[in-house]
Structures are given as C-alpha cells and as structure tokens.
C-alpha cells in the first residue's frame, strides 16, 4: 500500500515535468531558430574565409560539407603577407592597450573624487563631465586636428591615445562614479579612522573593490578602440599609414579588393579574434558590469 501511495505522486510529478517541458518547447524552438538565423551569415563568412577564390565564386559556402578537402589557409596567408595585416595587427594592439588603460585610470581617480571627496562645485563639475556624453565626436575632429598640427602629433600613436582617452572619459567617469558611490561609506570612514589618506583609500580600497565595474568598462573601451575606424583614420590613417590600425587596412582591403572579398573574410576574422578573446576572458564581469552602479546593494 505504502509503495503505491508513494509511487503515485512521483508518477504525477514526472508527468508534470514532461508537460512543463512541452509547454516551454515552442519558446525554445523560436529562440534557437532566431539564433541560427542570426549566425548563418557569420558562419558563411567564416567558412568562405577558408575556401579558395574559384570555389567561392562558383558555389555556395555550404558545399564545403560535400568537399571538405577544398578548405585552405591560403586567404589568411595572403592577407597576412601581402595585405599588410600583420603590422597593422601589432599597431592595433599598440593603440588599443594604452587607449584602454589611460582613460580607465584617469576615470577611476575622477570617480573616486566625485564619489567620496569633498570639494567646491563637485556636482556642477560632475554634471559637466557627464554632459560631454552628448557631444558627437565628429564635431571635435577639426579643432583637435588643428591642435595636433600645432604640437606635431598628427600620425602619432599618442594622438590616438589622447583622443580615445577624451572620448572614453565621460562614460567611464559616469559608470565608475555610480559604482564607487554605491560602495559602503562605512568602509571609507573606517579607513579614515584607521589612518588612511585619500590616496591610500583609493589604491587599497576603492580600486580593488571596483574591479567588476572596471573590468566591464575595460571591455567596452577595448572593443570601442579596437573596432574604431573613424578616429584612427582622421588622426593617423591619412598622414601616417605606417601607424594605421587593422580597421584602416580592412577598409582599404574592401576598396582595393572589392571583388576579392574572400580575402576580406579572412582579414575580418583575424581582426575579430582579439575582441572575442577579451570578451570571453572578461565576460563574467561583462553582465555584472552592465548593471553595476545602476542598482544599489
């Protein structure tokens, strides 16, 4: 008797679970369908980057399933050797890493001051900095180019580092200030009584406690600079092609190899590899970072 009584609810719960699964099935089918639809062009491009020119021109990318032996690295070899992609890749790294670290560092200092220090016109200054978010960066090109011309910075890496620092700061200050402002005040008060100066409190407490927000910002800024074409083209690309980053070379590939887009596919995937690596390395901060600072607690 007891076993029957015990078995019944179990059977019922299995049926219940099955029904629940069935209920969510259409939702899953739709979501998976959308994902596939979204990914197909990228997959096609990826596959084509490994197919020879003749095959790309004569048949669809999916035919590689029938002739897998077609796949080759020749496109990659070409863009790296003749396309000038390798030095541009190094340039991109050389531009992006400082252009990520400098604004983050400056923004962290500013955010700490705005969040925890007392000084006159603090709120007015903060509103002014955040207000800069609405200035379109295109409007800054001419005056900054003139300024760079005066100081002989056009075509230099430093020009890009400074420009990206300026463009990145308003958002970085805004996000970090909100995050640091939501850190418990008692921690800083306790440190003050313990004998910590503002500088100590910044380096020993505020900075380590803000790692999630800083990591999220690092991703944003890295992706923005790595993928930037406009700023690089304006300040460097035109005057000093030797210092041009990947994006500028990619853009030139399109115009000069308009018909040879299989090379472009290979180049695009080389360009994408770094942001993808950064994204996957820091992605656990990414989701946390988007909400960070917006909700207290």
């Amino acid at each position, binding site marked *: 008797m007891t076993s029957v009584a015990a078995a019944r609810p179990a059977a019922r719960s299995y049926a219940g679970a099955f029904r629940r699964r069935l209920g969510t099935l259409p939702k899953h089918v739709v979501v998976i369908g959308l994902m596939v639809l979204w990914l197909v062009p990228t997959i096609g491009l990826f596959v084509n980057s490994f197919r020879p020119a003749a095959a790309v021109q004569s048949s669809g990318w999916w035919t590689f399933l029938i002739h897998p032996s077609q796949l080759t690295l020749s496109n990659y070899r070409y863009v790296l050797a003749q396309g000038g992609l390798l030095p541009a890749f190094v340039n991109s790294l050389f531009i992006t890493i400082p252009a990520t670290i400098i604004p983050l560092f400056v923004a962290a200092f500013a955010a700490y001051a705005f969040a925890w220090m007392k000084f006159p016109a603090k709120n007015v200054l903060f509103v002014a900095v955040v207000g800069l978010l609405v200035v379109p960066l295109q409007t800054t090109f001419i005056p900054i180019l003139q300024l760079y011309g005066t100081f002989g910075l056009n075509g230099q890496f430093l020009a890009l580092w400074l420009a990206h620092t300026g463009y990145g700061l308003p958002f970085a200050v805004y996000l970090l200030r909100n995050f640091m402002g939501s850190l418990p005040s*008692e921690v800083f*008060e*306790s440190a*003050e*009584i*313990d004998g*910590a100066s503002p500088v100590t409190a910044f380096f*020993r407490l505020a900075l380590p406690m803000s790692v999630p927000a800083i990591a999220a910002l690092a991703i944003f800024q890295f992706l923005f600079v790595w993928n930037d074409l406009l700023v690089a083209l304006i300040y460097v690309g035109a005057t000093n092609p030797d210092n041009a980053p990947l994006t500028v070379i990619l853009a030139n590939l399109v115009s000069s190899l308009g018909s040879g887009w299989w090379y472009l596919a290979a180049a695009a995937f080389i360009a994408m590899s770094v942001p993808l690596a950064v994204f996957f390395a820091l992605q656990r901060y990414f989701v946390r970072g988007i909400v960070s600072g917006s909700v207290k607690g």
Partner: protein
Amino acid sequence: MATVTFDHVWKRYSGDVVAVQDLNLDIRDEEFLVLVGPSGCGKTTSLRMIAGLEEVTDGTLKIGERVVNDLAPKDRDVAMVFQSYALYPHMSVRDNLSFGLKLRKVPKPEIERRVQEAAKILDLGALLDRKPKQLSGGQRQRVALGRAIVREPAVFLMDEPLSNLDAKLRAQTRAQILRLHQRLATTFVYVTHDQIEAMTMGSRIAVMSAGLLQQVGPPQELYDHPINKFVAGFIGSPAMNFIEMTASRSDGKVQLTSQDFTFPVPDRLRESVAALSGNTVTVGIRPEHLELGEAKPGDATLRATTDVVEYLGDEEQIHLRAGETEIIALVNSSARVRPGDVLELRVPIDRVHMFDDQSGLSLTSRELAAA
C-alpha cells in the same frame, strides 16, 4: 585612556536641521557610557563627532585635555566599530586587523603580536586567512571588534554593533564586549537604540531625544528617578504605563482623578501636585510594580478588564483596559489570569511617578532634587 568632554556642542546641517543641541556631557576615563535614544535623536551624530567623521558646528569637544574640533580622525586616537562591520571585503581577516597598524608604520613583530592577541581574545585564530564573505555575521562582528582592539586606542566608539545579529548571538556578544571593557580598562562610548542593551551594558547611560540630552546617570538611577516623561517611557521594558489625571484640592485633600480612577497623592508630592490644581498630571506606573491582590485601606487601586495575556514563563504580561485607558501589568504567572477577567490591581503609591503634563518634567525627581 581618556575622558571625552562635550562642552556646549552643537551640530547643524545645511539648512536649519539641528541634529545635536547644546550637548554638555563628561564621559569619564575607563567608563562604559551608552548613548541611547530613538532613531534620529542625535546619538550617532554625537558619536561620529567624537570620531571626527562629523564636524562640530559650535562648542568644544575634548578627548583627554586636547581640543579635537579640528583634528583629523586618524589623529584622535579612537577606534570605531560600525553597525555594518565595515570590513574591507577583499582583504583576509589578518589584513583587516593589521591594516590600521601598517598605515601607522607599527613594526612588523608588534603587528603580529597584537593580531595574535586580538585573535586569541576574540577566538579568531582559525579564521585569520579567510575573507569576510566566508564568515558568519557573528564572526564578522568579532573581526570588526578585533580591528578596534589591535589599535589600542584611548577611546572605543561603537555604533549599534549588535543590531545585525540574531537574539542569541546578541546576548553572547554583549557579554563579550563587557568582558573586553573590563580587560582593556579603556573608555567605551556605545550607541544603541535598544534600552535593554543600554541597561545591561552601561556604567552610565545618556538618554537623548530630538537632539537634546535628556538625562545621564547609572542605569538604576534612570530607572528609579527618570527626570521626565520621555526617559520614564524609554527606560524599562515593558514601558511605563501613563495615565492622564486631573489634580484637584478640596477640603485640604489633594487628589488625582480621571474618568476611570482616583488616586490619593502621597505626602511627599502633596505640595507640587497641589500647585498644579486644575491642571493635568501624568501618572506613571511601571508594569512590574502593579500587584494583584487585596487592596489595603489607603492604597490606590486600578480596576480593569483583561484583554490579552502573554505568558513569559514565570511571569505573565497582562494587557488590561479600563474605559479609554490601556494598562500593562507584569505579574507572577501563578495567578493564571484569563482574558475577560476583571482585576483589581494594587498601585504601590510610593513607587508611582508623576509628571507635569505641560513640561513633561517629573514631579517626583523635582522633590528629590529639592531634598
């Protein structure tokens, strides 16, 4: 070791918000002083002024003989334990304890000695390498205490350090803090809104309300001789019963009457009550002073109907109602009172408090002060 002296101290915030008004308070060396009062009474602000986290708007604040009004928190030789513990979340317990000492460039062996000693006192030895998030609430609280101990400050400041703990842990930690006070023989200033904490821990209690210091004294003095209605109602649990009555004098007899009761006035208060003849006097009776049983001639009695009975083990807390008046009595549970019972409660007239309804001041204490 040090005294703390508030000399006509005011704290005003921008606008006209006054948090602390003209505070005069001498905290003695090695004393355990508890600042108690309801939320927003200015107790935490006063504590934060000692720590240097709030500026003194007006008046003089001294630690020992030194005026500290303009001294940075780190130079005041105080340590503070916060309600939220305020541990450094990314540091181990050991680093949390030693952080303040490292900043003060205390030699390494000395830091190690103090950390070990604090860990021993607070039973933190096994937790030294853990991060705060791996600790329970009680353990975090002990780390916060430890961080204050290692500093060996002249004054310990504690801002409601137990209010995030559960009831059992709170009782344990209460005893631990008292032992710590005895062991360290240092001045402790302790802020709480919980009058039981205040009564059990303080060598003296300072009761504050609405930014004003109401009364300072040992727990028993506050219990026996509250200076006004506020202190009387705040100290003691359950809270004192208040009954508003009218003073009258007829044929040389002074009496207090309300719609439901009539009380004779004890001789010691005759004059002061007679002076208020025709006015309202608030009578205060502590629930534990009400007695069940036969009234003797001359005794005051309350006749009321039992509403709810709360059984507490050897005592019962009885909620009674007489007309508009609600009364709480604490009686021996052997009486077995039931809801609906009509009780005759004897009021020991000598232990009754009386307050001028206008000023809220105690007539009883006024007599005492005059005597």
